[in-house]
C-alpha cells in the first residue's frame, strides 16, 4: 500500500507517494531525480549511497523512506553553498582525490559529517571514520589527504573569522 511521505531534502520540503518500505536511495534517485547518490551494493557494505540525515551519515540503501520522513536529508546536490563549493568538495577537487569518481559523493558527505563533529581530526581518526567507504580505484591516500586539506582549510577560515 502506497502512503504519502513528507521529506525535507536539501532544505526543501516535498512529498512522495510510495511504498513506505522502499529504500530512501531509490526514492531520491527515481522519484526526486537526485542521481548524485549512487548504488553500489544495496546492503550497507560500500557506503557509496551515503547521505546526511540530521547531520549524520546514513547508508540510504538501508533506510526506508518512511524512516526518513520529517528529518533533514542532505544529498551531494545540496552540499554546495550559495556561490561556491563546500570546503570538502573544494578539497577533493584540489587534491585530485578521484579516479572514476563514483565513490566520491559518498566520500565527501561522510567527510563533511566528520568535520562537523571533529573539525581537526588526526590521520588515524580520518582513516577510521572513512574506513567503510569503499573505493575500488583505491585512491585512499589521496582521499585521506583531501579530508586533511579540508580540515586545514576549515581551521584557517575559523582563525580568519576570529
Amino acid at each position, binding site marked *: 500500500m502506497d502512503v504519502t511521505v513528507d521529506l525535507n531534502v536539501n532544505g526543501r520540503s516535498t512529498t512522495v507517494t510510495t511504498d513506505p518500505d522502499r529504500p530512501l536511495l531509490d526514492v531520491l*534517485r527515481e522519484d526526486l*531525480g*537526485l*542521481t*548524485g*547518490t*549512487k*548504488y*553500489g*551494493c*544495496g*546492503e550497507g*557494505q*560500500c557506503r*557509496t549511497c551515503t547521505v546526511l540525515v540530521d547531520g549524520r551519515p546514513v547508508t540510504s540503501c538501508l533506510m526506508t523512506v518512511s524512516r526518513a520522513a520529517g528529518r533533514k536529508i542532505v*544529498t*551531494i*546536490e545540496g*552540499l*554546495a553553498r550559495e556561490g561556491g*563549493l563546500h570546503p570538502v*568538495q573544494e578539497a*577533493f*577537487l*584540489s587534491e*585530485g582525490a*578521484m*579516479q*572514476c*569518481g*563514483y*565513490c*566520491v*559523493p559518498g566520500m*565527501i558527505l561522510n567527510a563533511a559529517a566528520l568535520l562537523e563533529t571533529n573539525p581537526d581530526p588526526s590521520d588515524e581518526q580520518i*582513516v*577510521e571514520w*572513512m*574506513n*567503510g*567507504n*569503499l*573505493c*575500488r*580505484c*583505491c*585512491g*585512499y*591516500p*589521496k*582521499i*585521506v589527504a583531501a579530508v586533511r586539506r579540508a580540515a586545514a582549510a576549515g581551521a584557517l577560515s575559523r582563525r580568519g573569522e576570529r
Partner: protein
Amino acid sequence: MSESTYAVVGTRPPRHDATDKVTGRAHYGADFQLTGMLHGFILRSPHAHAAIRRIDVSKAEAFPGVKAVVTSADLPESPEQMVDIGEGAMPLSYIRGNMLARSKVLYKGHAVAAVAAVSPHVAEEAASLIEVDYDVLPCALTVEDAMRDGAPVILPDLRTKEFGEQTGRPGNVAEHFRHVLGDAENGFTEADLVVEREFRTATVHQGYIEPHATTVLWNEDGHVLVWCSSQGAFTVRKATAAVLDLPVLRVSVTPLEIGGGFGGKIRIYLEPVAALLSKKSGRPVKIVMSRQDVFEGTGPTPGSHMRIKMGARKDGRITAAQAYLAYEAGAYPGAMVAPGAMCVFAAYDIPNVVIDGYDVVVNKPSTAAYRAPGATQAAFATESVVDEIAENLGLDPVEFRLMNAAKEGTRRADGPKFRRIGCVEVLEAMRNHPHYRAPLEGPNRGRGVAVGFWFNVGLASSCTISVNSDGTVNLLDGSVDLSGTRTSVSMQAAETLGLRAEDVRPSVGDTDSIGFTEVTGGSRTTYATGWAAVEAARDVIGQMKERAALLWETDAASVEFDRGVFRAGGRSITFQELAAQLDETGGPVVGRGAVNPSGAGGSFSGAIADVEVDPETGKVSVLRFTAVQDAGRAIHPSYVEGQMQGGSVQGIGWALNEEYFMSAEGAMLNSSWLDYRMPTSLDLPMIDTVIVEVPDPEHPFGVRGVGEANIVPPPAAVSNAVYRATGVRLYRLPMNPVAVMEALWQKESEPGGGSLHSDAAA
C-alpha cells in the same frame, strides 16, 4: 622536444571534469533517464550446469505493468563469425549464448530471460513467475576438474585446438599452445639448482563500485540508440550490432561516465537484451545490475593452476625455465592465458624456455579482462620461484633479478624482441630506494620483492581539435575517461599548441561524432589517444601556418611555430591573435588526428612489501609498500601515482582476501561485499610510489601506459614477504588467515619444522 622545454607535460593541473564529480552532476550509467522509460530485469540460472527443457513466460507476460518478455528465442540467427570484442575476438554464437542461454545454462547466474516493466520492482516480481524446467547436470569448477577424464562436457561442440591445429577432440580444453625458445631440457642440465613448484589462484572480480547499467531505445526508424557505462563505445556498438544482426550504422552508442571498469566493462552483457525489450515494448528500456548480478553474471578474472620450473647456475645466471599455465575460461573459451604466457618470464633474459598454455572451460561465469589480464597469476608463480632460487644461491633477490633482467633486444619465448624497456631501471630504483635498505625489526615480519610486466597495446584512436576565436580549443576524442584521461590527453594537445591545460576543453564523443577509437584498456589511452591529440594539434598548427602565411603574403613553409607563437621574416603573431582572425582568413580550423600505433615497449613495475604475520590468527598485515613503475614519461604525475596505488591495492586484495568461494554445486557463496572482502583504507599502509621514466622512443612525448603493470607484482611480493616472515611459502592465492594457519601448522608438524623466525634481510 627535450624535457626542459615542457610547460604542461609533467605538471599537475586539476581535472577538467572534477567539479561535476564532486557535485554529483556527472552522469554515470544508471543516472540516465528517458521519458516513458521502462525498467528491465534479468532472470538468471540457479544452477551451474543444466539443460533447459522448457521456458514458460506466460504468467510474467500477463503480470500487470509488464510490457515485454524476451528469451534467447528472440535473438536473431546468423552465420557464425568472429566478433572483435575489444582486446580480442569471440565467436558470435558464444557472445549470443552468454547474453541469453539457449539450450543449456553453463553457470549459476547465466541469463535466461528478461522482463521490461513500469518499475524495477514489477519487473523483478514478474521475472519470478517465469517457469524454467531444468535438467541439472554435473559441473566442473576448476581446470583440474574440467581436464579430468570423464569430466562433464560443458560445450558439446567444442573441439580442442592444439599447437594451432584443430584436433577434433571433444572436451573442455579449448586450446593448448606452446612457446619454445632454445632448448629447455639442455638448459636445465646446465643449471646447478633447479626449483619446480605448483601454484593455484582463485577467481577474483574487478570489483568496480558501479554496476553495469544501460538504457536502450529501439527507435521507430529502426535505429538502436544506447546510453551506457562501458570502457569503449565502439566496442559496445560492434558487439551489439553483431548480436542483433544489424549493420553498425544502425547502432549509436553514447558513453556515459564510468564508475570503474579495470577490464570488466569491455564485454557487453545488457545492451542487446535491453534492445530486444525495447523493440517489443516500443519504449526505452533501462537495465541496471545488482551487486549479486555483477558477481554472478559478469566476467571475473580466471582462477589458475600453474607449474613453474626454473634452473640457475651458481653464478646467478638463469639457464632455463618452463611453465605450465592452465587458466579457467569460465563458460566460454577465452581465459587470458595467452597474455599470461607472454608475460610469465617477460622480466628475464632466459636462453631456454618452454611454455605450455591451456584455455579450459569450466562452469563459472565467462571470464573477462582484469588489469594486466593473465599476467598477475603468472607473476605470482614465477616470482615465487625466482625468490626461492635467489635465497638458495645466497643472492640478494633484487641483484639476482638484475643479473637476469630483460633489456632492449631480449627475445621473449613467444617471439618478439623487446624494444627499449625499463626493466633494469625499475629494479635499480627498487635497489636504491630507502625502503629496500631500511631495517625491518620485530618478530614475524618480513620483506618481499617482485617485478612484473604488461603491454601497451597501442591500437586505433581518433581526436579532433576545433580552434575558438579566443585562442582556446575544444578537443573531442573517442576514449572513455576512466581515471583522468580527458586531462592527460588534453595536456599533450596543450603542450603541442603552446596552450595551458585549462585552455583545452575536452569531451568524449559518441559513436556518431568521433572516429573509431578502441576501448580504454590495454594501458593505451594516454599513450595512443594522447598521440592522436598530438597529431590533431600538429594538423591545427599546419592549418594556422597557412593562415599566417596568408596574412603576411608569404609561404606557409616559411612560417615557424614555437611555444604558441607563429613567426616568419621578422614578423610574429600569437596563437590567440591568429585564432581571432580565422573568419577573415578562410573560416574555422579543425585539426584531426587518427593513429593506430603498434604499441610501446610496455611497462615494467616493481613492488617492495613489508608484512607482519600474526602467528595466532594467520592474519597478514602489510606494514609498508613501495610501488615502482616505468611511465616512459609521466604526463600528469598525480594520475600516474594514482594508477600505481590503485593497482597495488587491488593486487594486495588479490593476494590476501579476494576469492570466489564456490559450493560443490557451483554456487558462489560470497556474492556480496559482506563476504567478498575488498581492501578498505584501514587494511592498507602508506603506498609509496616511484615513477621511473625511460621514454618510449616512438611516442611524441615518450609515454608508456601505466594503467595495468602495477597490479602484477604485489601478490608475489606479499607472498615472498610472508615467506621471509614465517619461513613458510604459500603456493595458493588468496593467502587468507585460514590458508596461512594451515601452512604454519603443516610446517610445525614436519620434521625440522620450527617456530616463526624473524628475518629482516630482504
